[in-house]
């Protein structure tokens, strides 16, 4: 299981350090972490993709996060209907002559070329991690020069939070 946690925290200096220090201290590994401000400027949302772990370990992660005084809410999105997106910028070798191939490869991914040079193009793609991995694999034979990914950010779908309020409200949110 690769858990995805959505964590609302106070938007204050040092909070990110508290969370990462907690992960280090407890030996929790993370695959990605995104942090950004929410609709409320005093609150940030962290979307944390954990490395594979069993349920007991995940429970401990959530409880430890909840112990942090600057953490307001911890939600486990892993088995939830969620909108989860990763964004990648991929600079790929692309001599002018081959450029049409790149375009045809990325088109089904609804990816865009956002920078064009003589030797390379930079492709922007958004989607879930599998989709981005697939595009990277397709482009790799052409020579990926540089790659930047944002990591996953996610929100619960409205259907999940409204259709079954008990599940959405209680089962995944850690109430302590």
């Amino acid at each position: 299981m690769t858990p995805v946690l959505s964590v609302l925290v106070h938007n204050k200096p040092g909070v990110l350090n508290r969370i990462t220090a907690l992960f280090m201290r407890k030996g929790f590994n993370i695959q990605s972490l995104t942090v950004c401000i929410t609709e409320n400027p005093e609150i940030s949302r962290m979307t944390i993709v954990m490395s594979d772990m069993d349920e007991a370990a995940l429970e401990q992660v959530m409880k430890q996060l909840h112990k942090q005084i600057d953490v307001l809410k911890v939600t486990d999105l892993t088995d939830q209907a969620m909108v989860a997106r990763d964004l990648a910028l991929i600079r790929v070798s692309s001599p002018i002559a081959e450029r049409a191939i790149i375009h045809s490869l990325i088109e089904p991914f609804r990816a865009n070329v956002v920078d064009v040079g003589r030797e390379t193009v930079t492709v922007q793609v958004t989607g879930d991690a599998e989709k981005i991995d697939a595009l990277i694999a397709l482009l790799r034979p052409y020579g990926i020069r540089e790659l930047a990914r944002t990591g996953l950010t996610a929100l619960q779908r409205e259907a999940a939070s409204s259709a079954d309020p008990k599940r959405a409200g209680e089962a995944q949110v850690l109430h302590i």
Partner: protein
Amino acid sequence: MPGMSKPADDETLTRSGEGGAMWMKGADMVVEALRREQVEVIFGYPGGAVLPLYDALYQCGIRHVLTRHEQGAIHAAEGYARVTGKPGVVIATSGPGATNLVTGLADAMMDSIPLVAITGQVAKTVIGTDAFQETSIIGISTPITKHNYQIRHASEIPKVFKEAFHIANSGRKGPVLIDIPKDVSGEEAWFAYDDPPQLPGYQPTVVPHHMQIRKLMHGLQHAKRPVVLAGAGILHARATDKLLAFVEKYQLPVVQTLLGLGGFPASHALCLGMGGMHGSAAANKALYETDFLINLGARFDDRLTGKLEHFAPHAVVAHIDIDPAEIGKNVPTDIPVVGDVGEALAMMLSIDVPAPDAAAWREELLRVKRELPFWWVQDGDRIKPQRLIAEIARITKGDAVVTTDVGQHQMWAAQFFPLNRPDRWVTSGGLGTMGFGLPAAIGAHFGRPDKLVVAILGDAGFQMTLQELAVIGEYQLPIKVVIVNNSALGMVRQWQEMFHGERYSESLLPWQPDFVKLGEAYRIPSARVERDEELASALEAFLSEPGPGLLECVVDPNENVYPMVAPGTGIHQMVGVKP
């Protein structure tokens, strides 16, 4: 109030504002906040970055104890907190002052000791420039504090102090650090202290869920081999009376943790004593064979459980803890109860269920308790450390406050000093901090000046913080320093004997200072005792003298702590049980 402009007449620093607010300098605010928190004693050490704060403290009416090292100050604050249940307060300067607090912060974090540590910081204008005595104590202390703050403007001081004391002394207690840049002390702002703390991310569950309590009581009535495990939560919750009432109502055998000692009377018939690595045969038998374990505020530390697969393998486990993260962390739990153990016990007492049919089990445990107590063999005229502890307990009638260091003598103290009341036992459990016992005794004295304080220390741990003898000497504090001298790092030596083929690598201390002269250098009456036949009279004279004292007790260096659950084995696999 913050945000309101400065009053027109700025000569008056304590001019009244709206709602009783006062216009004050940052340093004066700190003192005022401490006063509002009813702090009666501060342990600390001044330095450059806290000069303005010490200026405000000068003749302020709150007692300040100048230790001789910041580590001494924070362990003293811990000792104070452990015997009073109130937060200990410590002040240190920036840089090395702050880093010298690190061991004490980690110790308090592990053992849930409420502390408020105030550190100076270089001025805001030079933070990040590697200024003189600058260190990022916020970064350093984040993993070893419950929470920490760096104040950016004096106007934050009232809110931060209010929150810090609240966080330190509620929920699962712990240390909170407040870092104050030097220039903040001179800033002026409004001071108001009446607003309750606003902490939406910190709402500890105090009252447990009644359904869980019902489940627990339902399980209890069907138990055949029930056991109560009483941890330090009993002491933090001040719930000793409720524990006693509950245990007597259902006639349940009680096992204690190292830090839970004193939470249940050692003299009680149902008390099996400490469990775990050096616990009693009866306690460990109970933990192994139980079919219904009620953990009241213990965190299933590895020194208690031994190898987890052999810990309470047949039991339904109920765990009551104020910290939900402790439940299920080490031991799978069938009945989790989040809340204060005092509240939980009150609810458990309010539900009447038939007492479990456990007379045979009880009799069996009490037989083991009777037949296999902690033991030693008196051979020759060397002082046996076990007897030394038992004699101290006898002479003080078990009513002294006992502080210990860490190692063999600590385990012997836990085994042979029967603690019948709470707030008499000050020891470093989770972190196992050598050097803790002497400064902790100083703090314990200021917390309970009416009680005799006996600091039981090893010869090695004593030498880690012995500079604090100066405080005992200076104030002539009624603290009795007992040095259990086996000329070794005894517990390290014991493990090397047992598990490393008697290769005593760096654990023997054949060269020792003259402890008697050392005590006398600090103007503390000091003596040495080496022969068993002199022990009782030497101790009686030493303990009955008013004022401070130091007694070096030269003990049998070959004595080991038994019984023992060797690391990596189960609690049913004890060695060294009384033959």
